[in-house]
């Protein structure tokens, strides 16, 4: 096991106006992540899927300790890193990297591509400059930016979106991490090139036996790349299990709705549609009981009052829904 997350929470305080502060002591919070638990094995690709505002990006930042959790526990590679600070945390960073969504924003426009990839090696003091340079050449070849002599010296503005994302991946992989958070890595990449970026990520998984936390809103992409999937809704995991199982036998009404909303490239096929009304509610005023009950087509009386636990329905398949609790 590379990562174990238990009951992780992140509440962001909501800023109040002066008047509100005078008349009310009640603090309000955005409950971005509200008590989630999961584990990621070595070499496993774990996808977090959900709509915008479901808390998937916050989860990614929390497990890398880029932001501090409100509550819960994060164990990385056997070490409790929940409250790790300073030098100790910095040392760990070479083993945990991140790939962001926007390859235009995540590269310094004034830094040559080669230097950008080399930077982590220098920061973590993993190689001398000369050694580092040859490592960067090797890495450029691996991510398909050849000839490396040319790509070492170009600036990000000379590259296309797909090539930039390759640079970002190269920079994340140069320190030989054990765990990488990939936050929507292909949503800004043209469709004709997406598969090549995903395949590149799979290649590094083989080579380094590394694990990914793959964050995406696109279930089709998640299906292609991941071993396990967790569906998030308003800061909670509502269903979790092996990818094939989730697609073959989705249990939670939200998962079913998500699956039926994905466009399928065939106009004739009439899909069985599950229609949801409205949109994801605000994370400040989370509905009582099951937080999905306001939109759920299978709502029962108890859903309004009682919050369902994430229960095991079969080996490795978990769901948080009263339909499946006895």
């Amino acid at each position, binding site marked *: 096991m590379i990562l174990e997350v238990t009951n992780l929470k992140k509440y962001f305080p909501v800023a109040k106006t002066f008047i509100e502060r005078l008349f009310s002591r009640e603090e309000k919070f955005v409950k971005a992540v509200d008590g989630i638990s999961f584990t990621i094995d070595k070499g496993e690709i774990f996808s977090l899927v959900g709509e915008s505002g479901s808390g998937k990006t916050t989860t990614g930042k929390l497990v890398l300790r880029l932001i501090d959790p409100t509550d819960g526990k994060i164990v990385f590679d056997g070490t409790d890193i929940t409250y790790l600070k300073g030098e100790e945390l910095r040392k760990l960073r070479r083993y945990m990297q991140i790939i962001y969504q926007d390859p235009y924003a995540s590269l310094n426009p004034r830094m040559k591509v080669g230097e950008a990839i080399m930077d982590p090696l220098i920061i973590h003091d993993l190689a001398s400059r000369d050694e580092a340079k040859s490592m960067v050449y090797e890495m450029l070849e691996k991510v398909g930016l050849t000839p490396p002599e040319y790509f070492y010296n170009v600036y990000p503005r000379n590259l296309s979106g797909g090539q930039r994302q390759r640079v970002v991946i190269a920079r994340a992989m140069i320190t030989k991490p054990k765990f990488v958070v990939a936050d929507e890595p292909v949503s800004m990449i043209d469709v004709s090139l997406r598969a090549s970026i995903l395949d590149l990520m799979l290649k590094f998984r083989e080579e380094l036996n590394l694990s990914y936390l793959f964050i995406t809103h696109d279930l089709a992409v998640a299906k292609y790349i991941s071993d396990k999937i967790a569906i998030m809704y308003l800061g909670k995991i509502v269903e979790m299990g092996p990818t094939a199982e989730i697609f073959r036998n989705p249990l939670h009404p939200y998962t079913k709705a998500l699956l039926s909303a994905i466009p399928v490239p065939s106009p004739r096929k009439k899909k069985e549609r599950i229609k949801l009304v409205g*949109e994801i509610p605000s994370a400040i005023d989370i509905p009582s009981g099951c937080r999905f009950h306001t939109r759920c087509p299978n709502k029962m009386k108890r859903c309004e009052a009682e919050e369902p636990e994430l229960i095991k329905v079969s080996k490795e398949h978990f769901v948080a829904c009263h339909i499946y609790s006895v």
Partner: protein
Amino acid sequence: MKNVLEVKNLSVYYYAKRAVIKAVENVSFSIGEGEIVGLVGESGCGKSTLASALMRLVPHPGKIVSGEIILNGKNILELSDEEIRRIRGSVVSMVFQDPMTCLDPLMRIGDQIVETILAHTDMSSEEAKKYAMELLEIVGIKRDRYYDYPHQLSGGMRQRVMIAMAVALKPKLIIADEPTTALDVIVQDQIMDLFKELRDKFKTSILVISHDIALILEISDKVGVMYAGHLVEFSSSEELIENPLHPYTRELLKAIPNIEIEDQKLVSIPGSPPDLSNPPPGCLFHPRCPCRMDICCKDAPPKLTINGRLVECWLYGDKP
């Protein structure tokens, strides 16, 4: 079936400082009454430029250099500025990608709809207000949200307001440029259903532009595929899926994940789209094409009609 829109040999170029960029090159297609037509392509293929040309809104330094755009029987390229202004909204209207930047943040949404109605009709403001409330209901928003400001609405609801404005004057054609790209799948599904409902109700034709082929294939009757400014294929969605003619279409279909296929292997197209300020000779797709022949590298491919389908490729034409 009557054609609402006929585009004939349309070319739109951008006159940049150093180069002329041929964003839309010799494109022809038509849209019938009540039809939903999809236009797909990667970023930079010219699909948004084409959309703006159809409203005669090509931004500077772009120019429509040749061709005809026949909308509802009139060539809009020959109209005066005043005439075209009257057509926008009433005969053809547009829904953009980002509803937040299209709505005035300081104006109640109802008043924004009323403004559109008053600008084009001789309704009194009382009538217009009543009509705006009806429109809100048609697009699935409660009447009392009339007095809300855009920030009080979610992304999906804002897009519904945009659609309410677009249908307000019962146009013949709605152009939707990436209407759901900023929205989540479930909301996307709802918005697409709304488009279909409106089509059935008002017999409006809809041109949907998107980079998402799966979405386009699911909702459209006909589909056009654009690559580097060219419309490389145009046919009914069924035929396009079952028997794609152009190699680009074929490769694109292999590159998109389909959740209904078990153990799918995705294949990406090698290389990247050409730099339009310095395009390759011959067919613009030839550097990435798996079916490349010698002629593709030299001469531009012919525009062919095969069983009513348009395709621009040497595979099907007589070679000189």
